[in-house]
C-alpha cells in the first residue's frame, strides 16, 4: 500500500524532534542547575542562559509550524492530537526551562556555605525528585504512554511535602535574611517545576488516545 502525505509526515517528525530537544534541555539542565546552586558553579549559569535563548527561539518556531500545518493539512486522528498537544506543552516546556535557569542563577547570589545542612539536604532531594519527574514526563511523551500521569501525580505529592519542609526550615530563621529570601524563591521554583511535569504527563493522556502504547 502506498504511503501518502510524506511531506506532511516530515513536518510532523521535525516538530517531534524539536519537542524532544526541548524536553532534553529541561531535564538535563535541571540537574545541572541543582548542582550549580549547591556547588556554586557560575559557569553553568552562562551555559543555561545560552540554552534559554535557544528555547526562546524554538518556541515561536514550533508554534508557527503547528499553526501552518493545522491550517493547511486538515489533520485528524493522531495527527490532530499530536499538533494540539504540542501547542499545549510548548508553553510548559518554555516556562519550565525558565524556572531551571532562575534556579541556576541563584548560584551567583548564594554561597553554598550560607545554607544549613538540612536546607542543602532538602534542596538536593527536591532536585532529585523533580529531575526524575521530568525524565518520566519526557519518556511518557516519547512513548505516547498516558499511564505516567498517575505516577507523576504521586511524585508531585512528595514534592509538595518537601516544599513544605523546606519552607518550615527557612522560617526557622537560621540563615541570613537575604539567603532565606532567595531560597524561598528557589523552593517555589522546584515546586512549580513538579507541577509542570505533571501537566505535561496529563497532556500525554490525550496525545496517546485510547490505544495501548506500541
Amino acid at each position, binding site marked *: *500500500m*502506498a*504511503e*501518502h*502525505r510524506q511531506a506532511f*509526515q516530515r513536518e510532523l517528525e521535525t516538530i517531534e524532534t524539536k519537542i524532544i530537544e526541548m524536553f532534553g534541555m529541561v531535564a538535563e539542565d535541571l540537574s545541572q542547575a541543582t548542582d550549580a546552586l549547591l556547588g556554586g558553579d557560575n559557569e553553568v549559569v552562562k551555559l543555561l542562559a545560552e540554552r534559554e535563548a535557544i528555547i526562546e527561539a524554538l518556541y515561536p518556531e514550533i508554534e508557527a509550524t503547528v499553526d501552518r500545518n493545522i491550517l493547511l493539512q*486538515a*489533520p*485528524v*486522528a*493522531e*495527527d*490532530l*492530537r499530536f499538533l494540539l498537544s504540542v501547542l*499545549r506543552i510548548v508553553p*510548559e516546556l518554555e*516556562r519550565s526551562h525558565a*524556572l531551571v535557569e*532562575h534556579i541556576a542563577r541563584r548560584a551567583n547570589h548564594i554561597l553554598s556555605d550560607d545554607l544549613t545542612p538540612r536546607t542543602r539536604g532538602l534542596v538536593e532531594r527536591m532536585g532529585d525528585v523533580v529531575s526524575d519527574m521530568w525524565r518520566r514526563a519526557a519518556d511518557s511523551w516519547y512513548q505516547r504512554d498516558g499511564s505516567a*500521569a498517575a505516577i507523576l501525580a504521586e511524585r508531585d505529592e512528595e514534592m509538595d511535602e518537601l516544599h513544605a519542609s523546606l519552607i518550615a526550615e527557612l522560617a526557622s530563621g537560621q540563615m541570613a535574611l537575604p539567603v532565606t529570601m532567595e531560597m524561598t*524563591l528557589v523552593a*517555589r*521554583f522546584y515546586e*512549580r517545576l513538579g*507541577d*509542570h511535569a505533571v*501537566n505535561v504527563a*496529563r*497532556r500525554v*493522556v*490525550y496525545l496517546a*488516545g*485510547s*490505544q495501548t502504547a506500541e
Partner: protein
Amino acid sequence: MEQQPEQNVTERQRTEPVVQQQERQEDQTAPEARVFETKNVSLWYSAFRAVTDVSLSVHENEITAFIGPSGCGKTTVLRTLNRMNDLVVGARVEGDVWYRGESLYAKDVSAIAVRRRIGMVFQKPNPFPKSIYDNVAYGPRINGIHNRGKLEEIVERSLRQAALWDEVKNRLKASALGLSGGQAQRLCIARTLAVEPDVVLMDEPCSALDPIATAAIEDLMHEIKSRYTIVIVTHNMQQATRVSDRTAFFSVLRDEKSDTRTGVLVEYGRTEQIFQDPQDSRTKAYVTGRMG
C-alpha cells in the same frame, strides 16, 4: 527583579479523551431509536461477494456517514437499505436487515413500499424533464394526491425544506433542466422529501457540486435531520466530519488466491471518535490520508 512564576497551572483540569464520554453515550441508546439494524449482511452479485458481514445500526434523527476507498462496498450497503439492489440481476442479500424492527427482505414486504418510506438521492442530480413543480409533485401524485391545493402545499413545503423555495418560487412552471447543478440536487432532495419519507439515503450527493452548493446541501441536511434519518455515502472526509453524527469506515479485503475484492466494515462509531481516535490501524491510515 524576579518575575513571579505563573499562576493557575495546578488547577488545570485533566484532559480526558473525548472518546470515553462518547462510549458512555453509546450505551444509553435505546433500541427503539435504531432505524436500521443489519446483522452479518453480505451482498452477492451472482458468484461474486461484493460486501461481507456488515453489522451496524442506524439511529433515528441522526446523520450516518459511510466512508471508504473506491470498491469498499459503501454504496452497495447503502442500496441494501432500500432494496435498490433488487433491481440488479443476480444480486442477493445474505444476513438480516431490520428496518424499525421488521425484516426488510421478508417475503411479504414490497420493495415499492419500502422505497416510499426510504427515499434516495443520487450522486448526479437527475431531475425529470418536467417543470420544477411537476418534479416535486410527481411522487405525491403517484401516491394518489390530486387535490390542487394539497399539492401546492406539498410542493412549497418540500422546496422550503430543501432550501430551494426562495430561488424558484417565481418560476415553478419553468423546466427543471434549467437549474444549476446545486439547485437541481436540492430539487431532487425536495422531490424525495415530498412523499414524506422516514429515511433519506444520499449517495455522494455533493460530488458533482461546487463548494457553495455543497455548503447549501450540508446546511439543509442539518436543517432536516430533526425530521428524518439520513445516511450519506461520501468520498469527502471533511464532509463526513461536518455533517455526520456517526461514521462507518469500509475497506477492501483482497483475496490473493482468487484475485477478488470484498468490501468490509472496518470500524463504526461516533464521528468524533472515528476522526480523533480511530481504533483500527486501517481506519487511522485512511482518515489521516496515509493509505490509498
